[in-house]
Structures are given as structure tokens and as C-alpha cells.
């Protein structure tokens, strides 16, 4: 899976801003959704490690698809192809004007129809501008 560069967000103090994080899974592969179908499966999860002048950062995960694979009896809750995570921030009331960045870690675990790959963590950076 690869993460595209999120568009920079901008807002005044106390404003709500949304960051869109584009993700892409190679054809023939899938990643578990944030709510996998089996307790042993590893969910996709974005956790912020530093948000700078932004507060919150609750993630809205897209609706997963239920796909049937050769290795599973029941359809699995997965993401395939291109999709987006949306992070909802609020600019802090005392935020200094100027640029900054929120940094997070995205953990995911991918499989094909025949094999699964070790869980990976990639860094996500959302640039912002306090107006």
C-alpha cells in the first residue's frame, strides 16, 4: 500500500479543518479495514503522534467492502484500490499563525488471495497553515 501526499490544510484559530489522506492498494491485494471480520486480523489504523497547532484528529474511515477470498470461509471486511482517510482537526485557539505539520503512523496488514504480508507502519504527514 502507498500513501499519497495529503493536501495542505489551512484555517483560522478555532476553525474546523479536514485533511484527506489518499491511499492506494496494488491490484490483486487488499488490506484489512479498520473493523476486520476476524479477531485475529490486524486492522488499518492511523494514530497521530504529533499534531502541532491542530487538535483532535479523529479519523473517518471509508466504508469497507466485503470480499470473498479463497482462504476464508466468509467474506472479509477490506479496502482495495484507491481510498481516502479523512482526519478532522480543529485549529487551536492559541495557535500561532504560520505553517506546521501533524504527523501520524498508519499501521496496516496486506494480503493477496494466496499469501499475507507482515504488518507495516508508514508515516503520514499533514501540512497545515494557521491563518
Amino acid at each position, binding site marked *: 500500500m502507498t500513501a499519497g501526499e495529503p493536501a495542505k490544510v489551512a484555517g483560522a484559530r478555532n476553525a474546523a479543518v479536514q485533511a484527506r489522506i489518499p491511499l492506494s492498494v496494488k491490484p490483486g491485494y487488499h488490506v484489512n479495514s479498520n473493523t476486520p471480520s476476524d479477531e*485475529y486480523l*490486524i486492522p488499518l489504523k492511523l494514530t497521530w503522534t504529533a499534531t502541532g497547532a491542530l487538535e483532535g484528529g479523529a479519523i473517518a474511515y471509508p466504508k469497507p467492502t466485503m470480499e470473498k477470498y479463497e*482462504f476464508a470461509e466468509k467474506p472479509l471486511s477490506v479496502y482495495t484500490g484507491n481510498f481516502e482517510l479523512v482526519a478532522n482537526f480543529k485549529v487551536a485557539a492559541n495557535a500561532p499563525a504560520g505553517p506546521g505539520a501533524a504527523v501520524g503512523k498508519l499501521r496496516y496488514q496486506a494480503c*493477496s488471495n494466496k*499469501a*499475507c504480508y*507482515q504488518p507495516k507502519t508508514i508515516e503520514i504527514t499533514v501540512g497545515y497553515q494557521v491563518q
Partner: protein
Amino acid sequence: MSLPRLSAAFATAILLSCFVQGCSSGPRTVRAASVKPAQDRKEAPEFTLKDADGKVVHLADYRGKVVLLDFFATWCGPCKIEIPWFTELERKNKDRGFSVLGVSMDDEGWEVVKPFLVELGVNYRVVIGNDQTAQLYGGVDALPTTFLIDQAGKIAAVHVGLAAKKDFEDGIQQLLSPTPGGIKPDQAAVPVAPDRERRPLPDPLPAFAVRAK
């Protein structure tokens, strides 16, 4: 047809039959497509890992046996398909010089692996793997990755990803049979290196192709 010509035709038929089916008077020999010829096999790298009881397990402990070495993880769906097959293979062949050895690649260790093994009714030994062991076996990026190791401790077959149950069954039968493809018991009595040092493969394992079936 004259008697000599009839005899020649009969002999030809027998030869053809032998060519197609083999001339052994014993049971038909199973030949698994995935099993390499003995001369092409490389030494399985030695490792030392711990089982669920904390006992140290060396691969060398299994010398003289056919070993199915399965790298798996609890979060790996295809692994969950194969593990019941391996449980069955262990039950059917454990008295014939065969063992399954599972290597879990779960970072969380026994906390997640033990309940998983209970849930799946696993009847064979499992150890917790690490990156060092995985590197010795070519990285093991994809799970399941399964190695079939002969009695002399050499890698006879590699399956990356979900394979066919029959491939495992045939490979094990072939290696357990005295010849061809298997190793005779007297040939398997290779002394274990006294220092039990890990011996990395001389070059990268060649057969890391996904067997898509």
C-alpha cells in the same frame, strides 16, 4: 501374426507400460512435482527457538526425520487453511519419521499464539520465530511459507503462499519412501555439527515462486 512378431509386440507393450507406470513390483512411487532432486537440495539453515513450554528447539534435533517447517502467523488467513492439513499430516505420519514444526511470526508472541493453537487443535510443536530466523530462510516476507526438509536436513521443497494440500501429501510421501527422491535411513545418519552454528545458505534460495493453484 508369427510367434516371434507376437513376442516382440508383447515385449514392446511391457516396455511402454514400464515407461509410463514404472516397473517396480512394490506400491507405486509418489513423485511430487515440487520436490527437488536430492542433488539440487541445499542445507536447511540451523536455528534455535523456544516452544510453548520454554524448551529450546534446534532444527538439528529433527535430523533423520522429514520435517514440514511452516512459517505462519495468527493474522494470516491462508495459514489458517493449511494448519488443519498439517495437523492431519502430523497425525498420519508422526510414526513414520515425520514431524511438523510451526514457526509463528507474530510479534505479540505466545499471548496471541497459544489461544490460536488451541482454537485450531494444533497437535505439533510450534516455536516463536524472529527476524534473524526469517532472514536465514530468505526473508519469509509472505506467509505462509513452508519448507519440506528431508532426512538429511536439506530443503526439498518450498511453498510460498497457500499451496495445494496434495502437494504437501505427495511431497511427504516421496521423502518418506526409501527411493527415489527420499533419503535412505542410513544416508540420513549425518552427524550433527558439534558447534551447532547457524550455517547461512551459500546463495539466496532459488525456489521462491508462489504456487498458484
